[in-house]
């Protein structure tokens, strides 16, 4: 019954439309329209989920219109299990960000709401696009509202951060465009699915892989192209940080899964040791760096990079496992772990960034420095309890979202390599050290100063947001089979095309 509706198009363009209307009205209306739009889009995800057939890997809810005939560029949309779960996550996060913004943003509220609505629409577009050029358009289109949000609502050093963010990500994606044009020359189409299984020569695959790598590695971000993220996070408004952490980083992993691995499987196999090494650097090196951060947002940003290391590790361990053991099941476990990590990380880290926003909003100069806080647990017990839950998810405690993906990746990596698993498992200690040490300094101890003394506990909007996130954390942590059931077929297919010729 819902298949007659162009659900994906609605999910992309409704927020954009809402943004336009908001820009034409005043702030009072913005506060009503923006949440309404995000609630509607989140509700529209329900038919999307219910109508989705989990037994097939084929793209569903397809829409296809010729867009630019000269180059056979189509406006072509569709979802498989991976993009479906990411789209639902995008709409969920969108609601949280808009709700948080209603309270936290004091200047240019309408523009803020509009920017984040457009961002949400573009991001759904990225996940739904089946045409490479359309993908590229959304991919770049999403940068603009993010750039604006950092530049306009960010803190002191925002212009440096926003330029750095823009140049970094933009430079990365230029090479991706070149790769896409090459693939068009080979296949005569921009349909992403037609790029799979081409049996391109190895040296060509390596060039393609490297071109995609730069684009996606910047997004993930992987060491050493990660330094934009801490800056962007610290300067962005907390809504921007949430979107960055919960969604934008995942685009890199999504890119690896959609482009790098299935298009250049031989190259991925040749270069998997680079990717594994970079992932381990992310986990260990970045984990150590996170410990010494003095700025809360920077600390959580670094912790995000470290957690994303598990996602990339899970993706590329596949090749290592296949080469060393040939056991398909462990490869499957590994890549599913990576995808689960990519989804589950959104809850804990998003919630923690929201938390920093909650604290900074209450502090007279919006400080994010850990040393300015202390003893928050006395003044905001409800907040402290929530934050403990999210911190534990970040630490990877079983029963919370943060555990599932890491556990799967760790188990499968041991199968191929003892040392890779051992290094990856240092995160058990490192993540606990940086997260709980930060928690200790912010929440425990005596009340730090008179500003903290005046803090009030969560408002009802903040409570709503946190309750939603807490449900997410527990749901994913206790019943990940729910997500995995959506993913199985799609990942199976993706894995099979990613192993062509390997």
């Amino acid at each position, binding site marked *: 019954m819902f298949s007659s509706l162009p659900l994906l198009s609605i999910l992309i363009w409704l927020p954009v439309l809402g943004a336009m209307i908001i820009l034409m009205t005043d702030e009072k209306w913005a506060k009503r329209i923006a949440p309404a739009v995000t609630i509607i889009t989140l509700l529209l995800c329900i038919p999307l989920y219910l109508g989705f057939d989990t037994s097939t890997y084929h793209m569903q809810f397809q829409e296809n219109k010729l867009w630019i005939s000269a180059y056979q560029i189509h406006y072509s949309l569709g979802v498989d299990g991976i993009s479906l779960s990411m789209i639902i996550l995008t709409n969920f996060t969108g609601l949280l960000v808009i709700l948080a913004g209603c309270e936290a943003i004091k200047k240019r509220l309408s523009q803020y709401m509009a920017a984040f609505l457009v961002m949400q629409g573009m991001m759904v577009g990225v996940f739904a696009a089946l045409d490479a050029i359309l993908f590229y358009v959304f991919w770049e289109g999403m940068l603009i509202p993010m750039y604006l949000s950092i530049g306009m609502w960010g803190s002191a050093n925002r212009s440096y951060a926003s330029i750095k963010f823009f140049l*970094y990500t933009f430079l990365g994606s230029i090479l991706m465009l070149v790769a896409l044009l090459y693939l068009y020359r080979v296949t005569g189409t921009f349909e992403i699915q037609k790029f799979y299984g081409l049996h391109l020569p190895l040296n060509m695959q390596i060039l393609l892989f490297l071109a995609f790598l730069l684009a996606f590695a910047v997004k993930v971000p992987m060491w050493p192209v990660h*330094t934009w993220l801490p800056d962007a996070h610290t300067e962005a408004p907390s809504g921007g940080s949430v979107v960055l952490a919960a969604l934008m980083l995942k685009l890199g992993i999504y890119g690896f899964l959609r482009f790098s691995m299935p298009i250049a499987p031989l190259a991925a196999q040749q270069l998997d040791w680079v990717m594994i090494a970079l992932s381990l650097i992310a986990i260990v090196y970045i984990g*150590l760096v996170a*410990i*010494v951060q003095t700025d809360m947002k920077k600390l959580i940003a670094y912790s995000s990079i470290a957690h994303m290391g598990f996602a990339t590790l899970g993706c590329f361990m596949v090749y290592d496992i296949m080469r060393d053991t040939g056991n398909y099941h462990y490869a499957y476990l590994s890549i599913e772990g990576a995808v689960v990590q990519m989804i589950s990380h959104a809850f804990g880290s998003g919630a923690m960034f929201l938390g920093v926003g909650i604290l900074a909003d209450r502090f007279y100069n919006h400080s994010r420095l850990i040393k300015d806080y202390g003893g928050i647990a006395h003044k905001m017990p409800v907040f402290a309890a929530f934050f403990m839950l999210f911190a534990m998810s970040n630490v990877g405690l079983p029963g919370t979202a943060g555990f599932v993906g890491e556990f799967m990746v760790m188990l499968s990596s*041991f199968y191929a390599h003892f040392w890779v698993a051992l290094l990856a498992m240092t995160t*058990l200690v490192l993540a606990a050290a940086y997260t709980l040490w930060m928690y200790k300094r912010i929440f425990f101890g005596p009340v730090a100063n008179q500003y903290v003394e005046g803090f009030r506990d969560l408002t009802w909007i903040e409570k709503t947001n946190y309750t939603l996130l807490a449900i997410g954390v527990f749901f994913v942590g206790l019943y990940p*089979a729910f997500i995995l059931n959506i993913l199985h077929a799609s990942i199976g297919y993706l894995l099979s095309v990613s192993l062509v010729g390997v």
Partner: protein
Amino acid sequence: MANLLLRNAALVIMLLPLLGAIIAGLFGKNIGRKATHTITITLVGISFLLSCYVFNVVVLYRLPAIDAPIYEWVSSGLFHFNVGILIDRLSAIMMVIVTFISFMVHIYTIGYMSDDPGYQRFFSYMSLFTFAMLSLVLADNFLVLFFGWEGVGLVSYLLIGFWFKREAAVFGGLKAFLANRVGDIGFLLGTAAILTFFNSLNYNDVFSNVSTIIGKNIFVLPNISFSAITVICVLLFIGAMGKSAQMPLHVWLPESMEGPTPISALIHAATMVTAGIYMVARMSPLFEYSDAALSFVLVMGATTCFFTGLLAVFQYDIKRVIAYSTLSQLGYMTVALGVSAYDASIFHLMTHAFFKALLFLAAGSVIIAMHHEQDMRKMGGLALVMPVTYVTFLMGALALSAIPPFAGFYSKDAIIEAVQFSTIKGANYAYFCVLAGAFITPLYIFRALFLTFHGKSKIDAHVDVRESRWVILIPLILLAIPSLIIGGMFIGPMLFSKPNLLGNSILILPIHSAMQQLAEHYEGAKKMALEAGKHLTLWLAIAGIVTAWIFNSAWPAFAENLKKHFAFFYSVMIRKYGFDDFNQIIFVRGFRRLGEFLYDIGDLKFIDGYIVNGCAKLIQWFARVSRHVQTGFIYHYALAMVLGLAIFLSWTLLGR
């Protein structure tokens, strides 16, 4: 049918405390203190009664083990990770112990925490702990085990740091969590190795296929490999070392005493710290096949048993004495595991749970009376003021010192004799350690007893010391009774009857015959107590008590003299062998330095400074330099054109 009933009963036992925790945690402030403790205590009480029922059915009616999956947590490829519970003799016994101690401590808490603002939160945590511990005990696979494992770790962290205004408490919590996590690396690696070799995390699948992996190796380096089963067992045991505080991962347990006393009794004496012991006993079908791993377990346990016991002698904080004593007793249990006397280990775990919880709660009663003073140098002469506390503490001390017929005598003696009979590598060393421990144990606990309850009172005159309230004393009495009788009552059924209480939950290979030989020498509990005088251990224990009396009551100057003569030894003891300093310098400071180095040099200076901003600077520089060409004077441009033309011309003409 009976299986379903039992499964549901076990689920209810597990979930009731969770329900209590949720009610107390979310609505505690609304429903008030009385409702909070009534609800949580009732729920834990029901859990205890149901546990007794399950124990009754499983053990007395000799039901085979029930492995009941509840739901599928993750499926991926051929792997199915379920959430499920295993009800057998071992988990039934553990369930009774956990819920009983938890029940007692819940009641005790009414008195202990009565004027604390975090009353409801405390009850919520304790019930949550009970839930986590029960899920650990009831797990039917490594996943759920790890869930409970981390769950108890979390609650322990929260409860140590319960008084979060105090720096030391928060620090202690963090330290506990991190030390446990170091062990968890071992545990998770072990779990991953299990999956690698068995393709399943379910106990049943693993234990029934152990024979298939014998002879297989794990390659740690291309040319270096170890027997898979040994690697698995050692890795799992490293996890147990974290949780059960074996050297060198023991550093967190003394620090955990910063938490309120009820949880020291519940978590850091009776239940959580024995999780590692329980786990190894549960894994007996694995450990039995690796003598190397068993030897490792034995040596680590023996070392912990002796060296931490020694430290207890030099502590002045009453809770820390008992904490070090817990370490030492955990060492005994570990030693028993090492000599394949799993039943004896669980037996000691059981008796220890009662008498150590008793000692902690009695110490807590003293601390409450002293208005949160824990330094024994400021106590003394309390026996007359607090008679009930004194008598119960004394009973706990006698049980701990293995004086017949108290419970500790039976369990500890069984362990010591099992070590004597064992032929495994390291058994001689372990035998020395456990015998030395038999002397040290009464020494430190009676030292504490004399300092606290005997001698001249050193209490400030204006401190009003009184016997504690009944809610505190009743749990003491209820724990003192089992501390007296449970040993003699259970030694037969637990260790020597066929099948014994643990029955088929434990596997012992015939080559590890320590328990077998022990059974051959056993002639009933009564005779064992009466003939205790024939064994060295009783005389060592009595010597310990006498020494404690000489040093602390009869001739204190002698102790002071010794201190001066053995100043170096004394300073080593006071510094606790330097573990804390070592960790602080090498790990805490070292890793922070490393992190700072990587951040300052790697991220800020190199990547951002040279590469990212370097690119920007390069472009800036280039623009600045090239800007000078754009002078705006027409003759400069004319000159450039002429020059360019000349060069181009000469290149085309001469180049050919």
